[in-house]
């Protein structure tokens, strides 16, 4: 397994790759790794003259393009003005559904998480939702969530939004919306395809040859350890510090 800094750099780089082509990515509060991925994409696009990337970070003054209160990010998504967003989940199932509510009965859940936030809405409306959850275990990645906070696919109703990929500490999965099923795309350095199957509670497709998730190249590392850390420091000072200290 990689050291913590390298693990994070791999995740950040993978997220930047997953975001390739988006114009506007929104990032929830307390999401430094997704924010860093979006910042890396923005920096890369600038360097090679590609389209500018707008990053909205909830709770950041500098990355706030909104002036109409809490509702604006949701309206903006409904208008098709947000291309990518991140969701997690106490549970994520093999059909891409997520559970942010709890397990062990409802409403008196024995394990209760905070609640669904905007997931039930944004999952329908944001074209490229990246499921990001560092813990890769059978208790998180389950066959069927106990409570569907947000459904990944709804054949009965047209929608532009839904899961694009699932990224954990161990692997990257792509999501096939037609089949409502994940496919393993790559395994992070230090883990094997068997580690992944041992720790995943749901069925998924596995290619004959499972590639390793590519590590960031030197140019990317330079950005990550320089400009991106500086940009992160505004919104996530503690995280930026811990990354710098790990150097």
């Amino acid at each position: 397994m990689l050291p913590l800094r390298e693990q994070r750099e791999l995740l950040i780089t993978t997220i930047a790759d997953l975001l390739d082509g988006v114009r506007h990515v929104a990032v929830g509060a307390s999401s430094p790794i997704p924010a860093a991925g979006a910042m890396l994409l923005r920096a890369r696009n600038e360097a090679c003259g590609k389209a500018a990337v707008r990053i909205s970070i909830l709770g950041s003054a500098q990355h706030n393009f909104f002036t109409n209160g809490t509702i604006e990010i949701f309206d903006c998504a409904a208008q098709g003005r947000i291309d990518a967003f991140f969701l997690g989940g106490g549970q994520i199932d093999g059909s891409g559904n997520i559970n942010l509510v709890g397990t062990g009965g409802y409403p008196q859940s024995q394990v209760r998480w905070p609640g669904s936030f905007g997931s039930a809405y944004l999952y329908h409306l944001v074209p490229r939702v990246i499921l990001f959850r560092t813990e890769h275990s059978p208790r998180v990645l389950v066959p069927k969530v106990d409570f569907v906070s947000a459904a990944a696919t709804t054949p009965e109703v047209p929608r532009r939004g839904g899961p694009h990929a699932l990224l954990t500490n161990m692997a990257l999965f792509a999501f096939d919306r037609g089949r409502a099923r994940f496919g393993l795309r790559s395994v992070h350095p230090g883990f094997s395809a068997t580690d992944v199957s041992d720790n995943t509670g749901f069925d998924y497709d596995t290619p004959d040859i499972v590639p390793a998730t590519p590590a960031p190249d030197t140019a990317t590392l330079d950005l990550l350890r320089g400009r991106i850390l500086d940009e992160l420091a505004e919104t996530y000072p503690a995280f930026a510090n811990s990354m710098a200290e790990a150097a």
Partner: protein
Amino acid sequence: MTEIVSLEALAARMAPGQSLAIPVTGVAMAATAALIETGITGLKLICVPTSSLQADFLIGAKAVAAIETSAVSLGEAGSAPRFTAAVREGAFALTDSTCPAILAGLLAAQKGVPFMPIAGIIGSDLLKVRPDWKVIDSPVGEQRPVVVVPAIAPDVALFHAPEADRAGNVKIGRHRELAGMAYAAKHTLVTVERIVDHNLMETEDSAAAVLPSLYVDAVALAPRGAWPLSLWDEYETDTAEIARYAAMARSDEGFRAYLSAFLTRRREVA
């Protein structure tokens, strides 16, 4: 017309059993302490659209009979301990929602219509636990299934803001959900860092940041009234204090000790 009153008088305007809308930013923590000191019970909390310390405080103080929310969490400091415990115990009526649905319900009340359509949501189990929500076929416009949610008209909206003027106009900046709460609510109570002598509605630019006094029943002065939470341009979250709360409130006794010290401290400041 808006009255300018003491924090105690402001808190005394809430009655047991009322529904109370509370926001994510501009949280009236000092007023919440004053409210808990009145011994209030049976509140129906409406979190707009989520809550953190404020809901956990009121729940821990046994002031809450019902809660409608999209989430309760202490954010970086982890789960909200009194909320989590109360859910497990079934200590209140729990109504789970999703952020834009709470805002849509308030918008319906703002517009005097019984319901509001909202995008997304279809497929979520929220529809199973919300018999008051429905999926209908759009009666006009593009034909497709759409979720409809009922109006939410809180008895009282309560928030904290940087400034009010003597007429009761309140500066809310970009935080227009605070205006949305006030439009929808029957009564609105506001605490502020300071009361200014000039008219906040005077210029086009300053007016744009204002909730007009028309919607504000009472204003009370409460310097650092959001502490330990942040107030946008004014002060940051006291993360050490939130972490201290998160640790102490794991048990009911720890929560009681924290709350008691918090109330004492507020009385000493006041």
